[in-house]
């Protein structure tokens, strides 16, 4: 499967900002708070469909995954995929992890539901899993809206990933549409992921 992975060196805007997300600072003053920096990745292409400017039939996706690495917020070239230094891949609505059936790495993940991004502050206690033939770990990240035929990220659905370099990161997918519009999603090109992530400290819940 990874043979198909190619990468276009598309521009990724990583907006990094500092935020004080820890609500409990006052109650539990820790001597040395972990630096809280949320990284936002905007419009990561995931095999987008190319529109013909002349109004002809759009050329379909290639079926190839875009691979991503959290440690340096970068897209990993297909030629480097064998080295296993990627964490997560996107193609259409499919989200994969670098292990088992989808890669040579040891990346695992778990889903945390019904939780706000800022409220998950420690590594959750559940088990970290790999994608398997019976499904991918993060398959439930979106809901399909039958009314306007759009893909909507589940607002309380967090992806927690044990990365290839042994870190834990929490991820929230914000949008599947270019520019992450709030309305009229069906007018925007799809297969562009906007997501935010933050590394979690090693203490388990």
């Amino acid at each position, binding site marked *: 499967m990874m043979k198909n992975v190619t990468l276009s060196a598309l521009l990724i805007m990583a907006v990094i900002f500092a935020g004080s997300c820890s609500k409990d600072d006052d109650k539990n003053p820790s001597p040395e708070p972990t630096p809280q920096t949320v990284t936002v990745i905007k419009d990561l292409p995931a095999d987008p469909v190319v529109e013909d400017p002349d109004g002809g039939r759009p050329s379909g996706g290639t079926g190839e995954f875009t691979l991503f690495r959290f440690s340096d917020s970068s897209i990993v070239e297909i030629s480097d995929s064998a080295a296993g230094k990627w964490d997560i891949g996107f*193609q259409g609505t499919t989200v994969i992890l670098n292990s088992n059936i989808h890669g040579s790495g040891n990346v695992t993940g778990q889903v945390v539901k019904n939780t706000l991004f800022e409220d998950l502050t420690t590594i959750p206690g559940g088990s970290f899993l790999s994608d398997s033939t019976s499904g991918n770990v993060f*398959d439930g990240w979106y809901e399909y809206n039958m009314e306007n035929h759009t893909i909507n990220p589940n607002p*309380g659905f967090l992806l927690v990933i044990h990365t290839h370099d042994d870190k834990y990161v929490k991820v929230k997918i914000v949008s599947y549409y270019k520019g992450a519009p709030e309305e009229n999603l069906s007018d925007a090109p799809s297969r562009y992921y906007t997501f935010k992530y933050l590394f979690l400290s090693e203490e388990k819940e």
Partner: protein
Amino acid sequence: MIFTLVCCSSLVYAQESSRDSLQSHMELSEFVVTATRSNRKLSDVPIPVMLIGKEQIQSSGASRLDEILAEQTGLTLVSDHGVGIQMQGMAAEYCLILINGEPAIGRTAGTFDLTRISLSNVKRIEIIKGPSSSLYGSDALGGVINIITDNSKRNGVHLQTKYGKYHSFDNTLTGSLMLNNSGSVTLSANRFHSDGYDLSPETYDKTVDPYTSYTFRGKINYQVTPKLKASLSGHYFSEKQDNNYIAEEEMDTSVIKGIGKEKDGSVNAIFSYDFTPDWHLKLRNYWSQYKTKSELFKTKDHSAYENSYFTQTLWKEELQSKNVLNTKQVFSSGIGFTRESVVASRYTQKEELSDYYLYLQHEWHPTSSWNILTGLRYDYPSSYHSQLSPKIAAQYKVDDHWKFQASFGTGYKAPALRQLFLTFSNSVVGYSVLGTKVAGRELENMKQAGMIQQVYIDPSKMADGLKPESSAAYNFGGSYTGYSDWKVSVNFFRNDIKNLIDTRIIARKTNGQPLYSYYNVHRVYTEGAELNGQISLLQHKLTLRAGYQFLIARDKNVVAQIKDGLVINDPETGPRYAELSDYGGLFNRSKHSFNVKAYYHYHSWAINARMTYRSRFGFADLNGDNILDADKEYASGYALVHLNAEKSFLNNKMTIRAGVKNIFNYTDSQHLSYEPGRTWYIGASFHLYK
């Protein structure tokens, strides 16, 4: 709820009865058959029932079934592949439609299109609220609507004509003939035409394309011997609609035209035999077929766009027995089977279902003030689990004024044919949907053809099959009948529904699109209260009626998630945890709905004004959190006002009518495609009997 019926009974009774018969003329000759399968006085039935009489139908100017139902308390029209009815907050697919006691078939995406049913020679409509699977089996989950056609006891003819906006033209001829005191024949023919209408003139498509339909109904009753009675009835319906719309496919747009045809018919033969005055047997033989066919083509090159067909056939045999055990108890039972088949362009082969069933019912009047009804039905269907459907109901008459009643019952809906056998691929987007019974076979075929990328759920694990959707319901209410011709009633209801069927992705195709099948997942509840009142004034010249329904309808899974910390996208603050008060419940439900009707009658004149209102209702999730929460996800509430006037001539042999519906011209092209806005009509009816 009983007085609901009372309220709905036609004003004629109220107008004609005199004060001394008060207790009450309102209930006097109101009988209902659907509640127990035997004729029972409406006031004696311990479950929520509503009656719509012929006079009410005629004085509303309604031509089709949906129009008259829309004016009743607690009934809301909903549109999904046809116009259906929501009852006690339950979706249209959970309402069983009967014609003369036998099931009407032909649903699209679960909806039985009520516009198919002409009111031309309908005598009355009986509406049972709450589940009645204990008598009727599948589909009687939310309620039952039984349409009873006229069966005149006199020789004569009746002619009715009506013309209105959008060239709607409704003509009916009914004739009846007595056969030497031992039988009767009634025949009726109706033609209905409408040019359709367009709520969004800026688009090419019309909201409703022009259509013409014919309805024929006939009934023969014959007393063969003093103990044996036979009746044969049937109907034939045919409708043609001219399609004309723009279809977009792969950046290409074309004008599509063609004709859609819809037909249904039925034959119903009933033999009744009275062994003794207290023991009656009835054999019911029923056959019905529903067919659609559409042939659509692209106008630019006359190439075929879509050819589709659907044929559903139902055969039902039932033997009923009724024993009057003594003056206080009646025992009824029935045994039968149904066989249903479907042949359709979206099914790979002819599919068949059968069901064997048995039901028992006991009516008991331990004292003059108590009435207790118990019932039980067992269904043994061919393609899903067997079902046991109980019902118990009790009524207590405190005195001439006060009456209370309570009931509990269960209902179920068998998995629909499409949920079992559909084999469908969307040619534009590329996804596919498979029924659970054919998923294994079709998935294997698709694998062989190299169309499957990954299988998520092994169809063999779905072998256990779909469970029927089922409900348990409680109704409790009371009524007060006053001396000066007024009455109020209240009914509280709660329906708990489980195993609602939805689609899920079972595999991904190599084109990246999902492959769906069906599974039991949702649990919902609806609860609320219904209030009805009626009063007669000015020596019964003026009758006022009002009804109100309060409704809460929620998905239990969403309620559980909210307790768990469901995150919603607040339009002002962004993602946050939901409170229960953020959740607007199921889509397309109005929390408040009410109607007010005034009927005035003076000599040969009659006028009425009717108003219905429903509060705002959700239509779709727009902010991506999959629940109804933001204000913009609601369609606004609205009120419709209708007026009608009529005058009789020649000793009531002739009546001229005129009316305006929706006089304030309320329309909402996005959410109320079935509401054409202000329309008017004029009409006349004439009858000759001897």
